[in-house]
């Protein structure tokens, strides 16, 4: 097992480095925008407090001087007098984001009205995970059944058709199929709602049902696009395993065909299968974010879209961090499972 722990440690270090570098990139790209918007909001605050306090001034110049002085004072208090790229502020920002202290948003608020970025994102993350996670799991399970079925029939029409469909669904944008699904099942045949925002409030006893009903169409879209690709991968690895000597031996001693396919072959195909999932995760995650926009599913993708439209930098930084975190965690978990299944890694010890 020592080899497994070695891999675990190496992967964890890699994870932290990736996270840190992505954050450095994010802050260096958005730091200037953040500063500008912060100073603007300070100016706004000073001017409003001046109007409310009703201080009388002798001249306009004097008033201007007072305003400028107040602004300078507040900027100094907040530490904004140093540029964003000064080591102190830069590291400070990164550290704060890493500790999930994401600050306040500029425009977007959470459904309960909170301007805290952490609150806004926390509200969205479960919904994205629900959609993305359930789609991945459903596709995976269906693929596990379809793959060996196709492997048994390799070279036949249904197998060739599956290759074609998997190539096609790999080439079609998720958001496009989403639009087609809305057109077909919300416009032509009004089975599902056009927009996936649940209509009832979270306190409603039937909220979960309502949520699932609204999630159905985006989920079906993701699953439809995933099935052919997944079963193609499963079939590919199962076919390769079926060629191995130990399977031939099992066949010779009379182990039932079904058992060979679904138990022995499938188990041995697990490591490469997981590897293919890792490489495919990025695409699925990106697709899940884009599909939220099409369906208006209130997850991270649609939040990102609205944050981009109003240039809400703290939200964008927070979202980049959290989605990188989720994405890397998913890669990490599948990677771990891979190392766990792969006999070669155990052999290192």
């Amino acid at each position, binding site marked *: 097992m020592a080899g497994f722990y070695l891999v675990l440690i190496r992967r964890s270090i*890699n*994870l932290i*480095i*990736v996270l840190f*570098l*992505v954050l450095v*990139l*994010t802050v260096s*790209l*958005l730091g200037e*925008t953040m500063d500008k918007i912060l100073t603007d909001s300070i100016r706004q605050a000073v001017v409003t407090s001046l109007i409310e306090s009703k201080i009388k001034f002798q001249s306009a110049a004097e008033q201007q001087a007072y305003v400028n002085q107040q602004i300078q004072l507040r900027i100094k208090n907040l530490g904004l007098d140093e540029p964003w790229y000064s080591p102190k502020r830069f590291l400070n920002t990164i550290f704060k984001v890493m500790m999930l202290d994401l600050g306040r948003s500029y425009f977007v608020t959470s459904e309960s009205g909170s301007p805290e970025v952490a609150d806004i994102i926390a509200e969205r993350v479960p919904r994205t995970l629900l959609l993305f996670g359930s789609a991945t799991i459903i596709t995976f399970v269906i693929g596990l059944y379809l793959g060996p079925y196709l492997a048994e029939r*390799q*070279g036949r029409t249904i197998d*060739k058709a599956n*290759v*074609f469909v998997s*190539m*096609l669904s*790999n*080439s*079609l*944008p998720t*958001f*496009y*199929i989403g*639009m*087609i699904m*809305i*057109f077909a099942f*919300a*416009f*032509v045949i009004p089975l599902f709602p*056009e927009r996936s925002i649940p209509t009832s409030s979270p306190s409603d006893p039937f909220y979960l049902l309502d949520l699932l009903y609204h999630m159905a169409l985006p989920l079906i879209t993701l699953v439809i696009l995933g099935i052919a690709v997944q079963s193609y991968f499963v079939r*590919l*690895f199962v*076919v*390769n395993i079926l060629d191995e000597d130990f399977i031939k031996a099992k066949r010779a001693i009379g182990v039932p065909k079904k058992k060979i396919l679904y138990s022995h072959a499938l188990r041995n195909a697990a490591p*490469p299968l997981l*590897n293919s999932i890792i*490489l495919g995760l*990025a*695409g699925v*995650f*990106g*697709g899940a*974010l*884009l599909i939220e*926009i*099409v369906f208006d599913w209130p997850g991270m993708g649609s939040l*990102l879209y609205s944050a*981009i*439209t109003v*240039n809400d930098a703290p939200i*964008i930084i927070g*979202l*980049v961090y959290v*989605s*990188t975190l989720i*994405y*890397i965690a998913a890669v990490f978990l599948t990677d771990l499972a891979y190392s766990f299944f792969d006999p070669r890694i155990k052999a290192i010890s």
Partner: protein
Amino acid sequence: MTIQLRPSRRSDIITGFRHSKLGLTGIIILIFLVGISIYAVTSIPLATFRQWNIPTYWVDYPESAAPAWTNVGMFGPTAAVHTILPYDSSKEILNQTYRGIHTVSRAFSTNFEYGSYPTNFVIPYTTRYGEIPPVLEINVTRPDGLEFRIYYSSLPSNTVLENEGGNSNIDGQETSPQVGQQSTEVQNTYSSRVFSTNRDISQNLRQYIPLFSYTPDVTRPQVMIFSDTQENEILKGPYTFKLTFYFFDEKGVIDDARVILGGTVYGILGTDAFKRDLAIGILWGTPVALFIGLTVAVGTSLIAMIYGITSGYKGGRVDEVMMRINDFFISLPVLILLILISVRYGLNIYLIVVLLVLFGWAGSARLTRSLSLQIKNYQYVEASKLMGESDMKIIFRHIVPQLLPLIFVMIAYSVPAAILAEAGLSFLGLSDMTIPTWGRILNEANAASATTLGLWWWIIPPGLMIGLAGLSFALIGYTLESITNPRRIR
């Protein structure tokens, strides 16, 4: 995953493709796409696609019109096809000067054979004249031989430039008088449009009411002009719009004139809610997508090849470090980073290509490395190493040729991913906004809620093109792979 390398000759590949239906399908789609690209680049003027963002360019086109081929008349009467009769299509029937009056007359003919009335008509014109304003007369000759003089009015004079014709328009379009004062002589360039809703037209049509056996509606000239005199129905056949300008000096010229019969269907792909001809956007999207897809694919595969071979061949600590860097690039969330960069700087297609290459090579590099590790241990490679051949020579003589089929497979497989990534960015509204791309057309369709308005011709073609482009390369890659590496696929 065991990957078995098999040397393959060119003839193997050709026969392989000939026997594979999937491969042939891929090739046929690719030829189709290349054909479209060549057609777009050579026959649609570059200016047209540059005008994609300029609404005034598309004024003459119908709004949200379905493709013309849907006009089969299976469900009720056929819709009127939106017809634009350009200046070039008109015939000059008169150009003479008599007693100081310079008369220019042009005829615009069309054959109206549809089951519905035109929704409206618009006659835009641009003319230049001297001090005395000319008079414009518009006549319509109908299939039954009747001629209606629908418009007779003088244009504004040099000093007073008013809006002519558009005073009661319902389309919200504005007339655009452009005063081009030339230094040598006093000459106006005047552009305006005569709308079917113009009050003068209804006034002029009043005199033709007695010709009809029923009372036609003069407030809807597009209906009255195209109606039968005996029965209240459409009169099909050839119509001619004659525009006559009476200039009171020699200098008067018509620069441009068009007749537009409004309809609800147009072109092979219809138009969007911003009146743009979708066919132009879709056609021009093809070379753009192929450019992005191929450049990114070739770029990533080359980097992956160099990186993977170096890492695998050198081995040891170099390999270790290079593979850690590779792990880092594999774990990067590419789409999110692209979004971030485009939010900050804005993207153009070249930058997109560079970024997609930068973030996209890692997966293939891992594969190349594991293969070059295999090849390195082949006996003949070790033999040539012992004979003292340089590393470079070994790499280019022995490793690269072995890997070449795989590189082609990688290139083919990377194209769909690159096209999809660009489409995703465009869909977020973050891509190059100066050119029409398929993803961007989908973004605009989504923003204008084309799905819930039922504008299917705005949604289906662009995504289908993305899918076709990706599919052709994926199928070619699959076939190449099954030829060069039969063990992996079969």
